[in-house]
């Protein structure tokens, strides 16, 4: 054995580290999924959890493209949508079948069919679009998404027009004694497939193809030099990514029992892009965090404020400008920070930054909420904790300006200090 190989073995992770980094998180993830129902969540929470599960799989599938392969897509919902539609059709075939193949197919297996359909759609559409990377790929995905969404309105027999197509998840034979009628059974279904999807996608990152896709992202020319065709690598990764998006489509078909053409439009594609990026595309777990946050926000925040899209836009821009590693970057940075030797110094810095950000948030919320109420003109007044904040009140203006100024000043001071260090 030469010195070189000796060194590289020494650099490799020990089996304890491997367990801690590659097995333990998944065991914990599985445990969390299994424990949640014992807290007796309401049906609303259950529905939200089911959607979170679906979006976790979708966001991870999307990140196989954006984060891993460096391909920015504006139309990934097309694959989720096509597979979802296919699965709703299967639901109806199962319902209509009297024995035979469809009659004996448990609904539980739908995500597998979604996976296959997603792969097929990815293979067909990906063939022309994967020949280019970068902006050309992004533009083609945009064009394809617009085309598919428009086509869905034209072929009613396949897509059902604006009404979409709905099915009944309670049809077909029961699997493991589950009729999939009640929401908690759907939860187990979604949890199972979310776990399978997450583990499978993590394992994909460990395969040679997964590694090559990262290499193609970083330097396609070198990948070519060592004898691989970057176009082919991109194409294969694209098929897998579309397949996992299709799997999420299969899960969504069972949870929602309906698919409509808008599920293939630019809006869900843009939403998953935001979710993955806000979560942090450089970490495997980033899109998971992003999917959880975004699903929760889009479903709940709109109950509290009409300005939720504005908050969403602000949050997204903030992440793009100041936190390119996303939430996962913050979490892991914090985790590494509290274990580093100069943690007290770091903690002080973070505490100041947190105070600064919190101050700015107070101002922004006041500005946005007061502005929206003022512009809607119903004479409604923003009243946090019973404190009236009319648009022409002195306190309102103070609350809108002072914390913002203080926050900006504090953040700038921290930034200047860390530059000096």
């Amino acid at each position, binding site marked *: 054995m030469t010195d070189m190989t000796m060194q590289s073995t020494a650099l490799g992770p020990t089996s304890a580290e491997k367990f801690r980094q590659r097995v333990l998180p998944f065991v914990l993830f599985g445990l969390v999924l299994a424990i949640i129902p014992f807290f007796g969540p309401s049906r609303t929470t259950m529905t939200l959890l089911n959607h979170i599960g679906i979006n976790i799989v979708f966001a991870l599938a999307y990140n196989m493209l*954006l984060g891993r392969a*460096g391909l*920015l897509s504006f139309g990934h919902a097309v694959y989720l949508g096509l597979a979802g539609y296919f699965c709703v059709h299967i639901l109806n075939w199962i319902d209509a079948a009297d024995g035979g193949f469809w009659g004996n197919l448990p609904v539980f297996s739908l995500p597998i069919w979604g996976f296959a359909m997603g792969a097929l759609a990815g293979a067909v559409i990906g063939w*022309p*679009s994967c*020949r*280019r990377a*970068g*902006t*050309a790929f*992004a*533009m*083609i995905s*945009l*064009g*394809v998404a*617009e*085309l598919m969404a*428009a*086509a869905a309105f*034209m*072929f*009613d*027999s396949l897509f059902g027009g604006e009404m979409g197509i709905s099915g009944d998840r309670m049809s077909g034979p029961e699997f493991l004694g589950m009729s999939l009628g009640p929401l908690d059974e759907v939860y187990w279904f979604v949890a199972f497939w979310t776990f399978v999807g997450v583990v499978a996608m993590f394992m994909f990152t460990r395969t040679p193809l997964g590694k090559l896709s990262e290499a193609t992202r970083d330097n396609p020319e070198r990948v070519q030099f060592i004898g691989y065709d970057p176009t082919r690598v991109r194409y294969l990764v694209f098929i897998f990514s579309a397949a996992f998006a299709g799997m999420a489509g299969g899960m969504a078909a069972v949870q929602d029992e309906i698919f409509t053409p808008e599920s293939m439009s*630019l809006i869900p594609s*843009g939403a998953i*892009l*935001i979710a993955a*990026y806000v979560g942090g595309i450089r970490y495997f777990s980033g899109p998971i965090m992003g999917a959880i946050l975004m699903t929760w926000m889009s479903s709940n925040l709109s109950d509290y404020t009409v*300005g939720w*899209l*504005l908050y*969403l*836009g*602000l949050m*997204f*821009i903030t992440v*793009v*400008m100041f936190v*390119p590693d996303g939430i996962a970057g913050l979490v892991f940075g914090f985790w590494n920070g509290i274990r580093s030797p100069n943690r007290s110094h770091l903690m002080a810095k973070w505490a100041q930054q947190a105070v600064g950000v919190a101050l700015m948030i107070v101002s922004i919320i006041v500005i*946005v909420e007061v*502005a*929206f109420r003022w*512009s809607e003109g119903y004479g409604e007044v923003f009243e946090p904790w019973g404190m009236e904040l009319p648009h022409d009140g002195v306190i309102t203006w103070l609350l809108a300006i002072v914390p913002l100024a203080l926050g900006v000043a504090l953040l700038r001071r921290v930034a200047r200090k860390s530059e000096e260090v």
Partner: protein
Amino acid sequence: METIVFSLLNGTIYGLLLFMLSSGLTLIFSMMGVLNFAHASFYMLGAYFAYTIMGVTNFWLALFLAPILAGVIGMGVEKWGLRKVHANGHVAELLFTFGLAYLIDEIVKIIWGRVSVNYQVPDSLNFTLFTIYGSDYPAYRIFILFVAIFMLVSLWYLLKKTRVGLIIQAALSHPHMVGHLGHNVPLVFMGVFGAGCALAGLAGVIGGNYFITDPAMAVQMGPIVFVVVVVGGLGSLEGAFIAAMLIGLLQTSAVSVNASFADIFGFLGLSATSEVGSITISSLAPMLPFLLLVLILIVKPTGLMGDREV
């Protein structure tokens, strides 16, 4: 015959409006490599500014002030936003403008409300210019034509005949070299970004009352403008012009074609009652730009006139 005349006239106007929007985007795109997702938002801002200014003064003042305002905001975005994100690469820049489009949409809703505003054609231009084939032709359309051509000529003059134009042209093709020659490239970038946004704003001023001024106008125009820029080819204003006119004419004339797939492919045995057979060419019109985009990118990735791959 009358269909052809109308298609040509309306297609030209629509094409020129598209060009006004996409010329700014082309300049920005080719110089900075940023595909400005929020470009159509500046188009919307232009229309709303004009509406507000027109309410206080008159249309002619709005025609000058609104684009300038849009341009100033564009410069601010470049200076305090894009420049910061630049270090994180093109994807981050693209995403920044993507988020910015969301933001501008919402802010417009706060200021001007969520419904369309009553932005009218000024009275001095609101008359019938001529009547052909029994149909009135509004003078405002011809006005749009003149503004667009005037802008086209000024842009051409600015780029080809002035020193500023020379620097911009050089920066289009060799940005680094221009920087090495001692020009203030960030300033050029900011100026070009602002000018691009101002052009979009101008398109908004004259397009907002031709179409409709509401918070959805940016979302509807945005994707088509991209198509024009990409189909025309990077770094090529001529390409953008050809693409804009092509798409304008294609979309307007496709609408007047009543033929269905069954009429065209009938010899293959396609029946008019089948789902595919009953699709008409006119119903395909809005899809055509995207079809064109996908085809062009696959067949000729440099676009019609561009010399660089996207």
